[in-house]
């Protein structure tokens, strides 16, 4: 396994960077056009005090864009991967608690968000997707060096 992994690792890192970075960039970009809705999406999780939820709703999209850009260009990959992984973990916890408490919300991951009809919730697929992205973030933390990267 050792030799094969050594060859594949830089390419896997590139792959992980582009997927996680691309998803974060898209997620942030789709939210900044409607920050009212972004804040509404965070409030709908009923997890944080209202003022903190609104603050996150207004600011998180920009952080997603920033981390996404860093991952795609390959700058500060280790830290960006870690931040990406931490955000994904937070999303997984937030979505799981919403599911467990029987809330009916859209995750608001790519814009949208807020209260929706109970039959329209997609908690399982949202959690599975975020677990996949969490894995990519963890991988980047441990193997930040890859192809086509600004990091040396």
């Amino acid at each position: 396994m050792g030799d094969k992994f050594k060859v594949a690792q830089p390419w896997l890192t590139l792959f992980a960077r582009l997927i996680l970075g691309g998803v974060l960039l898209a997620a942030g970009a789709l939210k900044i056009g409607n920050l009212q809705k972004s804040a509404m999406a965070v409030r709908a999780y009923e997890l944080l005090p209202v003022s903190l939820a609104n603050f996150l709703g207004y600011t998180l999209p920009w952080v997603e864009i920033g981390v996404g850009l860093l991952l795609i260009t390959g700058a500060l990959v280790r830290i960006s991967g870690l931040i990406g992984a931490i955000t994904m973990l937070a999303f997984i916890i937030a979505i799981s608690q919403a599911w467990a408490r029987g809330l009916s919300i859209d995750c608001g991951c790519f814009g949208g968000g807020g209260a929706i009809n109970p039959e329209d919730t997609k908690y399982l697929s949202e959690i599975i997707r975020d677990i996949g992205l969490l894995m990519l973030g963890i991988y980047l933390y441990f193997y930040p060096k890859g192809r086509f990267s600004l990091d040396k």
Partner: protein
Amino acid sequence: MAANNGGDKGTRNLVIVMVSFIVVVGVVFSLISNRSSTTAAVPASVSADDGYGIVLNPNTKPTIDVYVDYQCPACRAFEIINGGYLNEVIAQNKAKVVFHPMTFIGPESILAANAAACAADENEFMAMNLALFQDQSAEENSGKWQGDALLNIGKSIGINSAKFETCIKDGSYVNWTGNVATATAKADVNGTPTIFVNGKELDRSKENNEYGDPVKFRAALAAGGVK
């Protein structure tokens, strides 16, 4: 590039600086633009203490808060089902009713909320409220409410004043809609329609709730002290 497996250090630092700059500017801009504006023009019937909502029967009790977005189909349904009774409550001065026109669906929600506020200054808010829902497009931000459309809706309910026309054309209360949005965010309203009776939210998550059932809506208002 693949050969040396990386770019040079200057490019990397430049990218980091630029990305940080984008994030910081974006965050600051977002926080500032979502603060309440003290200089925004507000309609005469608006009270900052009531979340910048349009207040009808300001001295009556109990208080009913109504949060709608004029582009929200569920709000249109609510208006069709319960709007008649709500009108009756207002006309007979049975409650103080505060309307909070939300704008999270987009630009045409802002135009519609502005038009409703312009109509409020003509004492025609309730008629405009109904007319807007009746004219709601099936698609969000379809372009239907651009141009003179909202002015014509006003004319259709008998508003012909020059002041109203200026108000619509200048978007006099567009900045006020931002204040409503900020107050709504603080009030923890996460969907539309949302009704509060004396500060208590009617639960939308239950099946057959008050929003879709006129008998239950009446009962909820009665329980809140509407006689």
